[in-house]
């Protein structure tokens, strides 16, 4: 394992979160280097989604600290973190289903629309210009994720794969330095998964940093610069995909659990 060279964009130190005695994230420390694609993997219940909620600020930690761009953000709310440059998607799609596709992306830009409420209400020229620029940017992002023709449709009417892509466009609308993707490839077919991987590679090439949680091992191994493996809320391994794949602890925890499940299923089938 070689340590990241640049100062980390995101650094968790001893991050802990417990739910009434159940420790979902347990003293976790890890760093995300800028302009990399970093994956968090681990068996079901390893604490990945809890960790995402801690990083994006939707859950307060029980202990430990978080630094983003060198700044302590442990006590900041989710909306402040979004304003500092974090954008996220959700594992179970969380679109604003009644709003149009374009309005969803514009909502994602909320933290980048500084006009005051009074200027907004009175439609002062600055507020109108800001809104026009936001619409242009949102339309460009929709084109980028292949939803250019869908801008006026209610988001709830989009197909599953389209909603996944819309969530990414909505997260990108906040111009995040760190993009947090919670199982972005879940439910996608192989073609869609390949397109998604291409998009994420482009984003990383544009000097964005991506932290993603994923179950699809092939997707993670082919895409990511660095992988952190969690089990029972703790980090059990970290390194390049090749290093992690060869780590006995990972094989034991991750693949072991999978093999165990397969054996259980086989036993049930035989019974």
């Amino acid at each position, binding site marked *: 394992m070689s340590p990241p060279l640049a100062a980390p964009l995101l650094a968790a130190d001893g991050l802990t979160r417990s739910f009434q005695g159940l420790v979902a994230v347990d003293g976790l420390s890890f760093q995300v280097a800028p302009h990399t694609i970093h994956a968090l993997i681990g068996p079901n219940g390893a604490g990945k989604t809890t960790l995402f909620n801690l990083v994006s*600020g*939707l859950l307060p930690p029980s202990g430990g600290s978080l630094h983003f761009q060198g700044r302590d953000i442990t006590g900041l*709310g989710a*909306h402040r973190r979004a304003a500092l440059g974090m954008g996220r998607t959700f594992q179970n799609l969380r679109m*604003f289903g009644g*709003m149009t596709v374009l309005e969803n992306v514009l*909502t994602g830009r909320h933290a980048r629309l500084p006009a005051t409420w009074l200027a907004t209400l*009175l439609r002062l020229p600055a507020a109108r210009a800001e809104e026009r620029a936001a619409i242009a940017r949102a339309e460009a992002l929709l084109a980028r994720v292949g939803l250019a023709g869908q*801008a006026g449709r209610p988001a709830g009417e989009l197909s599953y794969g389209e909603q996944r892509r819309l969530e990414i466009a909505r997260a990108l609308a906040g111009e995040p330095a760190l993009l947090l993707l919670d199982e972005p490839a879940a439910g996608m077919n192989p073609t869609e998964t390949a397109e998604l991987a291409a998009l994420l590679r482009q984003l990383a090439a544009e000097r964005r940093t991506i932290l993603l949680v994923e179950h699809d091992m092939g997707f993670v191994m082919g895409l990511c610069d660095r992988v952190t493996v969690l089990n029972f809320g703790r980090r059990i391994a970290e390194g390049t995909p090749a290093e992690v794949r060869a780590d006995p602890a990972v094989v034991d925890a991750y693949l072991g659990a999978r093999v165990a499940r397969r054996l259980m299923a086989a036993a049930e089938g035989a019974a």
Partner: protein
Amino acid sequence: MDSLNDFLWAYQDLIYGLGTNAILALSMYAVLQLNQLSLGQAAFMGVGAYVGALLSLHTGLPFALVLAAAAAVPAALALLIGGPSLRLSGVHLAIATIGLGEVLRVAYVNTPALGGAMGLSGIPERAGFAAIYGLLAAVLAGLVLAARSKIGRACEAIREDEDAARAMGIDVTAYKIAWLAVSAALAGLAGALNAHYSSFIGPGEYGFDTAVSILSFAILGGIATPFGPVAGAVVLTALPEVLRPLHDFRLVVNGLIIVGVVLFLPRGLLGFRMRRTGGLSGPARGATRRV
């Protein structure tokens, strides 16, 4: 003009009541649009009525300042009572406000300076057609402008998914606090207007049943746009008058109409979405869902 004046005189209370009830319905909309339920609207209305009445009875303040104070005091009270509960989610605001009307009723009854059980009478009739409908128009215009802007977009996002809205950079707590203050201010304004045309206010007028009436204006009309609550207030205020020829069956038919709307129009009488510039630009034009 004479016939109009006769009409206004004969139906003055109804016409003025339509206007103030529409403002009350908009005060309910202000919190409901964020999925927040306040059951203190009648209480805030009462505070505005008492503040306005006392200022008019005992000071020489211009009516505009009396109305401003009648809006500001309930807003401050709302922040005191509701503010802490807004950091939590769900029904906490409803619970925090549910007892407010009852507490205030007891306070009015037991405070001689507030007229006790007799209430306050002889309030100068300073609120007329122009004041009531001018303020209603201003409030409605302000809320429509807000709903059509990024503010309305943020409100709708909060209504649909609070956590997702937070992750988009929306300060959900600040929105809830600000709209609660607006809501209480509007209810107080309506209460003061009401006090200044009915010339009498009593401690029993601002209880739970009034709160439920205000809630039903907004629910019946629908909260997708500010027009819905106004429509709901107009229908529910005028219906008992329109149905007057039915005599004893009036309340039955009134109730049946309300139940019918709730059953068959769950989004309210006016359930269409607000047209928003951002939702209608370019390829989106004309494609917004109209329900």
